[in-house]
């Protein structure tokens, strides 16, 4: 039957096409300078992606291309599979990704250093948040949380709300829970440094914390349009973002690092 031949031919064509599109060699990257002409991955909407995009447009990275994935995890998967040469991402999630995946390493030279803060769209609330952050810094809660989540000190404890606390209303926090150790899922609940800090702040304000998990690039829009009261997602303060939302004082610093294959 001729139809069988047509089907077999079509199958062979698809196979040949897919094989022909294979190949392409990955680029060896030893430092930030080697990012020139490389295929670079990042999570869409993060400062890592924005800085790389700006540098490409300014002609600093030659023929480099930027691929913006929905999450850092997917960018790392693509890197492992050799689809891209490097991933630019915040230091702490980078450590978790490298720990969980063999054959990856973080370059010693960071791409850029930056400040993390909580984004808001309400000046009154911002002042209350800043005061709460100052108090948390003073009474050692913040250090303890950094010790627990960032330094992985086994003696440190995560935050727990004081017993018998009564809430008057709630505050909605927008986040993207794919960013360990700042926010991630554990036993079907969202935990992490940002979540604990936010909960500690809300407890101080007598408000119940409600978390809304969304795509990272929707967080600022959600705050602007009143769908969330504030955003906490390892967010860096940038000039463009400041034009549209307020940021609290910085509670920790982050580093954009480069992950490559070993």
């Amino acid at each position, binding site marked *: *039957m*001729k*139809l*069988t031949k*047509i*089907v077999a031919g*079509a199958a062979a064509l*698809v196979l040949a*096409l*897919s094989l022909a*599109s*294979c*190949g*392409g*060699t*990955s680029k060896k990257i030893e430092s930030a300078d080697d990012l020139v002409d490389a*295929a670079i*991955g990042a999570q*869409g*909407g993060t400062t890592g*992606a*924005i800085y790389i*995009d700006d540098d490409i*447009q300014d002609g600093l990275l030659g023929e480099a291309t930027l*691929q*913006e*994935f*929905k999450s850092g995890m*997917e*960018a790392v*998967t*693509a890197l492992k*599979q*050799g*689809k891209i040469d490097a991933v630019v991402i915040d230091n702490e999630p980078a450590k978790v990704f490298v720990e969980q995946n063999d054959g990856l390493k973080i370059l010693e030279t960071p791409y850029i250093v930056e400040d993390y803060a909580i984004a808001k769209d309400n000046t009154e609330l911002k002042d209350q948040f800043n005061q709460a952050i100052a108090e948390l810094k003073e009474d050692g809660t913040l250090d303890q949380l950094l010790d627990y989540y960032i330094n992985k000190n086994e003696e440190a404890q995560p935050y727990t709300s004081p017993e018998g606390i009564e809430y008057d209303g709630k505050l909605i926090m927008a986040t993207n829970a794919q960013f360990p150790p700042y926010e991630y899922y554990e036993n079907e609940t969202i935990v992490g440094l940002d979540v604990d800090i936010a909960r500690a702040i809300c407890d101080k304000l007598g408000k119940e914390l409600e978390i809304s998990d969304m795509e990272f*690039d929707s967080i*600022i*829009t959600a705050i*602007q*349009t009143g769908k969330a009261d504030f955003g906490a997602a390892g967010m860096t303060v940038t000039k*463009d*973002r400041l*034009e*549209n*939302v307020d940021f609290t004082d910085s509670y920790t610093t982050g580093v954009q690092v480069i992950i490559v294959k070993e």
Partner: protein
Amino acid sequence: MDFFQIIGDYITKAAQGFADSFYQNFIEDNRWKYLTSGLVNTLLITAGALVLGVVLGFLIALIRTTHDKTGKLGFLNWLAKLYLTVIRGTPVVVQLMIVYFVIFASVRINQVVVAIIAFGINSGAYVAEIFRSGIMSIDPGQMEAGRSLGLNYRQTMWKIIMPQAVKNVLPALGNEMITLLKETSVAGYIAIRDLTKGGDIIRNRTYSPFLPLLAVAAIYLVIVLILQALVGRMERRLAKSDRN
């Protein structure tokens, strides 16, 4: 007088705000280029997937109807049914990511090619059922008439059944083409800069959702209108031989 002045001020302010926002979202840093390059990718993926989908769908429909009419091609028919079940039973965005991260694991491959393959295979399943319904809609008397005039099965299929079937399914095919265009908006999941992603990138730089989203929606709408006009023209041309 005061009233008109207030209204006038308000309109001037709104216009100024719109102009500022327009400048920030599209003109500054040549941000409109995200939309145009995204549109090129969207059209490339749609066109490629459409060709692949029609070829695949046509073959599958032929296999299925030939089996129904003659009882031959049992194994191929089983395979076609399996394909239809799996593809129509899973979401296209999941299929896209499976093709990229699982089937093409460990391969550096142009993502647009991946998207064409994924969307083409997906569309093929729906096109197959459209073609099959078209072939089945032709009266069995047409086949009998062809065969009794001395044409063999394949000749009857090609010269008598198919021309009528294709004409019948043209509106449904046009619909599938429009659906396909809009479905490609999930291409951003495998880091393709398509039209939707282009708008997302602008939103990520400017943090104003209003104009980028509306612009993206408007561009899709214009493309769909163009496609509709093309299908309508084709339908009218094929209808020329109809008796009125």
